[in-house]
């Protein structure tokens, strides 16, 4: 039971940590791709 709780807590931490870095990075990449599209217009 304690192990299951620990594992669930670690999963939540993992999701939060990856969102913390992934969301800003994805936003920046999307901005760049949107700007780069002018090259092919």
């Amino acid at each position, binding site marked *: 039971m304690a*192990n299951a709780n*620990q*594992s669930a807590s*670690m999963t939540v*931490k*993992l999701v939060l*940590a*990856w969102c*913390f*870095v*992934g969301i*800003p*990075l994805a*936003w*920046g*990449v999307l*901005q*760049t*791709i949107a*700007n*780069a*599209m*002018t*090259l092919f*217009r």
Partner: protein
Amino acid sequence: MTSANAAAPQGGFFSFLDRAHTVAEPGFSRWMVPPAALCIHLCIGQAYAFSVFNLPMSKLIGVDHATPDDWKLTDLGWIFSIAIFFLGTSAAVFGRWVEDGGPRRAMFASGLCWAGGFFFAAIGVYLHMLWIIYLGYGVLGGVGLGLGYISPVSTLIKWFPDRPGMATGMAIMGFGGGAFIASPLSVWLMQKFSTPTHIGVAETFICLGLIYLCFMWVGAAIVRVPRADWRPEGYTPPVVAQKLITKNDVYVYDALKTPQFWLIWGVLCLNVTAGIGVLGQASAMSQEMFPGRVSAIAAAGFVGLLSLFNMGGRFFWATISDYIGRKNTYFCFFVLGPVLYALVPWAGSLGNVTLFVVFFLVILSMYGGGFATVPAYLRDMFGTRYVGAIHGMLITAWSMAGVFGPVLVNYIRQYQIDNGVPKAQAYNTTMYIMAGLLVVGFFCNLFVKAVHHRFHMHPEHEAEEAQTEVAAAGDPAGA
């Protein structure tokens, strides 16, 4: 774990930064470490986007035009150069300190220096004193860059002995990606803080400093080092010795005495020289090689695409290197690279923009791949123990290339134009020289062999080191 904590230095406000307090508790997932590393690298990657401040900072007094009292673009260009110089210097000087104290202390210090650099730069802008910005962003921020760049490397390699290339590639990818966030964010903040009579550069620096401080300290808080006896589940170290992957460690300063260190230094320097010159001149080059066909806006898009492939290449090539080996990965760069560079003038003569773009996207992916694969290459050659410090010293190759690359591209282009070569063809010679540099890199890589056993750490050397570590950082067994 318990023994590690028990033996950890007690008391002292900053004791939570010690390596002994960073040892992972049972149940900790190693996949928490890449986001911790990304917290650092995404922030310090802002350095690549510093140019967005150059134009606004050249009009701080005149606001909508540059007055004679405003700073010149040539003077502002030094801010980035000083920061990159101190990145290399501090990585080399503090590598051992980073390795001894563990990742948390280094990340914490890196955050302080990096954010402090922004705060000093804000004061410099407010008082309109450029030397404060040189000292703030350039020197202090540059030290933050160096500490931050190397701080998670050896930790990631220890957590991912089965996939060291992928792990370090993920972190170093963040350095390439930091500019994507910083560039639009900085522009947006400057718009928010600007008025018809004032450009909001100082306020933007303060905001960025605060954001980066929080981000980097979150990284420092969540990073952990594995226990000494920890292995990934289901992973057994290879029993059969691999020729180019050592099971021994080489002491940090002994690594400098090996030909392998200097050959890999040459490999990195040549690979970076070829890429960095192009990256800096990509916008002008695309417009001059295809006059009337590539507008300034399209050229900016081209630069964005190059940065995207520079970032993606860091993860892609470093991950590939786990399967085909580091030496073979660099062989790909040094065979494919010269061919592509040599084909660029041909694409220009055909007027084929798509081919030109594709060639450079592949070239820039290999430029990024060179950065990201090198920590694992060093691990293979010199072992895990001092890989962070050795990597720190290798970063001087980057500083050197940062000077040579742009100078080569700029001066050769100017020389060609002065001698009557049309602008559209002024880059051809540069492309052939870049191809030549990569051929030299091919031979540097070819001569890399396993490190001679006389450089491996001996038991008495290790005992001495262990004693030093006990004195410096508490219980080394826990690390």
